[in-house]
């Protein structure tokens, strides 16, 4: 016997201001199967939950509908509440009267009408709900961190310190990431390498951390607690066990025309190289696109000079398969390409550079040994113009709509450092707004202006015109004075926007983790679950989730680590019982479902089927409920409607649609 209870939440005024909750209760009472309906100010509160529990017990309810916020918010809460009161947790349905109704309506009549319809649909569904039991699955006590920048290193260190094995997969030859390229860090001006390299060493030396550098994740299957990952270790052509890191090979290599990635292309590197002197591991790789031996078969200089006999031109890529309980994405960022910003003459003048390039120029290990000089003629610049928001906060399609967040601070840092070291250099910064909301950030910026005399101009630059004498004429506007400016500069620095590393799309697809329109990975909840992906077992660390500076990245990396540790500490995980199931009697075994299954959860068996007394062997689909994530792709691919998602069966969904259309 069915007895449905309906509980309508006011959510303070969130719902009640736009929905007549009393009317919803009245209308719900008229629905088939409903034996109890009431409203309350905060259903999720202890008192609200108590009302639900009491009604379940007193009226012996067989199912409940809670009309409240999104199920993503409180479905788990109400399921737990029902379970405590003795009801199967899957006999709970949520009608989303907040996000899908009150928040998007202004008119109370319209809002109420929709609320009644949504409630009706949920009641129609819960009438067809069946009790489901969650299963259990194990947890592999090992984590994978994709990306070996500061975010990945910090996450790995924190997980490893908690006692779990961690593998870092880094696609370049060394860990360190973008932070390794930086000279000084705001707002304290410590040397970036001084604070990063010890962490790199810690990571390499940690007995629980295993580095896969020059490697890429190729394939991911499985699910939370039990991922199987294929990692391609690209051929280094150098035997890591034999190499002593002496560096002779790099000195002797005759092919030295490749652009150094580490120095942002401002200097050359040999075909056999480590990205930078403090690289970890300190084992070079041979770039096969540059190596004369690999390209023509002649040369072999490095092999000749290598005392350790570590050079191996015949090395091949190696694919290793490893199992993990959790995966952290820490793929970081790249600076955008400036093709759309010809007005700043980046492609025309060597003296128009990006901030990251300036970072290398300022660095003692950089292409100019730390001397500030023009790349065109090596002369020291006298007038430098910084242009902020190049590609950030851009309303048009040519740039990014978001604020890259770090540029205001690093520009203040650059301006300050230049004025400190070269007091006779004039520094002008064009900005839209100066954004410094961080600890000691605004003080830092004020110092740049007040103590170091950096000339901040509110306004944008329309054009940078290279002149015949080698100078750069900057056409800008001063919005405060309301006048056009023309500044003759000999160096222009562009604070180019940052964007997620382009490889993240591929990784997100492999992980079935969602990404937003800007290719940043989406959080499970922007406020309450900011370091988790909506895909269970996948966590986010660093800029792959959104622009952030080093302190924020490190905090988030630690937060992601603790989430991973929380997961790995469990021995068993409850599995979602809302998985697909095939009706063996009707299944054609046509493979349509397996073709669309993103989790590889469907296989086929020849099974003896008893169809009302007729026994026949059929090829039928079998769902591995541990692998199935309940996405429902198979249910729509199946032409005969054989695949059904438990908890979201075709009949339940049709009943909801029918209730809405009634």
């Amino acid at each position: 016997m069915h007895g449905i209870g309906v509980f309508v939440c006011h959510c303070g005024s969130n719902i009640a201001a736009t929905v007549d909750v009393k009317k919803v209760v009245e209308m719900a009472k008229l629905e088939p199967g409903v034996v109890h309906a009431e409203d309350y100010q905060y259903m999720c509160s202890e008192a609200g939950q108590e009302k639900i529990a009491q009604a379940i017990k007193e009226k012996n309810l067989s199912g409940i509908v809670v009309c409240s916020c999104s199920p993503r918010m409180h479905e788990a809460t109400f399921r737990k509440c029902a379970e405590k009161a003795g009801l199967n947790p899957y006999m709970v349905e949520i009608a989303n009267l907040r996000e899908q109704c009150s928040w998007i309506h202004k008119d109370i009549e319209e809002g109420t009408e929709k609320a009644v319809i949504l409630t009706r649909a949920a009641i129609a569904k819960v009438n067809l709900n069946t009790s489901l039991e969650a299963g259990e699955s194990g947890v592999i006590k090992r984590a994978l961190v994709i990306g070996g920048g500061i975010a990945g290193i910090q996450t790995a260190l924190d997980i490893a310190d908690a006692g779990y094995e961690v593998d870092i997969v880094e696609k370049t030859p060394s860990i360190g990431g973008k932070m390794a390229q930086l000279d000084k860090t705001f707002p304290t001006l410590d040397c970036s390498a001084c604070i990063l390299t010890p962490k790199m060493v810690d990571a390499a030396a940690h007995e629980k951390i295993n580095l896969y550098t020059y490697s890429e994740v190729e394939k991911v299957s499985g699910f939370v607690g039990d991922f199987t990952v294929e990692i391609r270790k690209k051929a280094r052509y150098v035997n890591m066990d034999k190499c002593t890191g002496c560096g002779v090979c790099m000195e002797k290599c005759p092919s030295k025309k490749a652009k150094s990635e580490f120095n942002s292309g401002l200097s050359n590197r040999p075909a056999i190289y480590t990205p930078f002197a403090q690289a970890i591991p300190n084992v070079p790789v041979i770039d096969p696109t540059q190596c004369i031996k690999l390209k023509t078969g002649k040369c072999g200089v490095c092999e000749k000079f290598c005392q350790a006999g570590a050079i191996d031109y015949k090395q091949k890529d190696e694919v290793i398969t490893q199992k993990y309980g959790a995966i952290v994405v820490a793929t970081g960022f790249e600076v955008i390409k400036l093709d759309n910003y010809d007005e700043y003459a980046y492609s025309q003048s060597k003296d128009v550079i990006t901030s990251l390039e300036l970072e290398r120029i300022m660095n003692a290990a950089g292409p100019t040994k730390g001397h500030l000089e023009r790349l065109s003629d090596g002369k020291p610049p006298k007038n430098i113009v910084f242009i902020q928001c190049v590609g950030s906060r851009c309303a048009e399609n040519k740039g990014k709509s978001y604020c890259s967040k770090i540029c205001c601070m690093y520009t203040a840092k650059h301006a300050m450092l230049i004025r400190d070291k070269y007091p006779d250099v004039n520094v002008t910064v064009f900005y839209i707004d100066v954004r410094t909301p961080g600890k000691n950030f605004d003080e830092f910026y004020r110092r740049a202006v007040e103590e170091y005399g950096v000339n901040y101009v509110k306004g944008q630059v329309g054009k940078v015109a290279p002149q015949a004498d080698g100078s750069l004429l900057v056409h800008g506007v001063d919005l405060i004075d309301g006048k056009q400016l023309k500044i003759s500069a000999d160096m222009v620095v562009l604070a180019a926007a940052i964007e997620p590393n382009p490889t993240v799309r591929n990784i997100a697809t492999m992980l079935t983790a969602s990404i937003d329109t800007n290719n940043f990975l989406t959080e499970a909840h922007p406020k309450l679950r900011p370091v988790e992906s909506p895909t269970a077992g996948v966590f986010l660390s660093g800029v792959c989730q959104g622009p952030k500076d080093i302190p924020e990245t490190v905090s988030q990396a630690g937060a992601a680590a603790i989430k991973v540790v929380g997961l790995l500490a469990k021995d068993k995980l409850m599995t979602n019982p809302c998985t697909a199931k095939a009706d063996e009697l009707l299944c054609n075994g046509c493979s349509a479902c397996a073709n669309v299954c993103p989790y590889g959860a469907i296989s086929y068996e020849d099974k003896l089927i008893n169809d009302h007394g007729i026994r026949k062997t059929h090829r039928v689909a079998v769902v591995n409920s541990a692998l199935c994530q309940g996405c429902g792709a198979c249910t729509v691919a199946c032409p005969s409607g054989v695949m059904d998602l438990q908890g979201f069966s075709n009949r339940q969904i049709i009943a909801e649609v029918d209730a809405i259309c009634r």
Partner: protein
Amino acid sequence: MQELISRLKELLESGSVQRVLGWKKGDFTFNPEPAYFNSAEELSEFVYDGFCGANLSKYMIKASNLEGVTAVLLKPCDTYSFNQLIKEHRVIREKAYIIGIGCKGKLSLDAIKAQGVKGITDIKGAEIDGDCNELKVETLYGEKTVSYKDSMLERCHVCKGKEHMIYDELMLESADTLDADRFTDVEIIENLTSEDKFTYFQRELSKCIRCNACRNVCPACSCRKCVFDSTKFDSEQKANVDPFHESMFHIIRAFHVAGRCTDCGECSRVCPQGIPLHLFNRKFIKDINEYYGVFQAGEDIGQTSPLTDYTLDDMEAEERR
């Protein structure tokens, strides 16, 4: 033709096949029907001519469960359906000995009647050994002559070609019959206004008597239990409520076979009401071609269907970029 019959006899007598799946004479010369022949003697009823339009590949679903090997006669276009059925694990390749037979275009009685011929009693000139230029039609009102080409099924005017996609041996010659573009009719409908489109489909689909012939003949409609017959979805009652649901039957069917339909044209051939059902399927095929690159279901067993496959080159992925 004699050569074909001798070969079939030989196959049956040698025991290398247990039966032949072909066509036998009907009540008239123009309505042969699919049939099994279990012995050399039974082959006296065997016929293969311009009226043997029926696609026999779907019969192999049942024949795959029979003892031994069935020799099945497949025209070039039928082999696409057979491949698709292999891909969907509905037929067993080893249970079929495929004789790929030639085809000179299949005839439509409706197309003959449309040329003003009434009271047909006999038709000559459809023999596969003949030149297939002219049909001599005996009617209650005397003998008439019509052109073979003008009497062909629509699908033969947009023929997929003389190649068999799968076979064990080939027999008989084929002729080129392609003389029209496959998507012209679809484009005409695409260019109609929404109202006119709706009127067009309402008019065409209102003719439907829900005899299910289209579904029963369709090689893609091979479900053990069709959703329209199943009690699981309450759809078997729904389909009869009003004419709108009647139309939904065809639209749902078109969705179900999308990406799997080989455009064999059997639906339109068997429709007793003359509804151009193939146009639904062709619209899907045209869209698939345009959005995902040209795709022909059943051409290759190994290829994945664009609708059940996701690649980073897909238009959806492009849009996300």
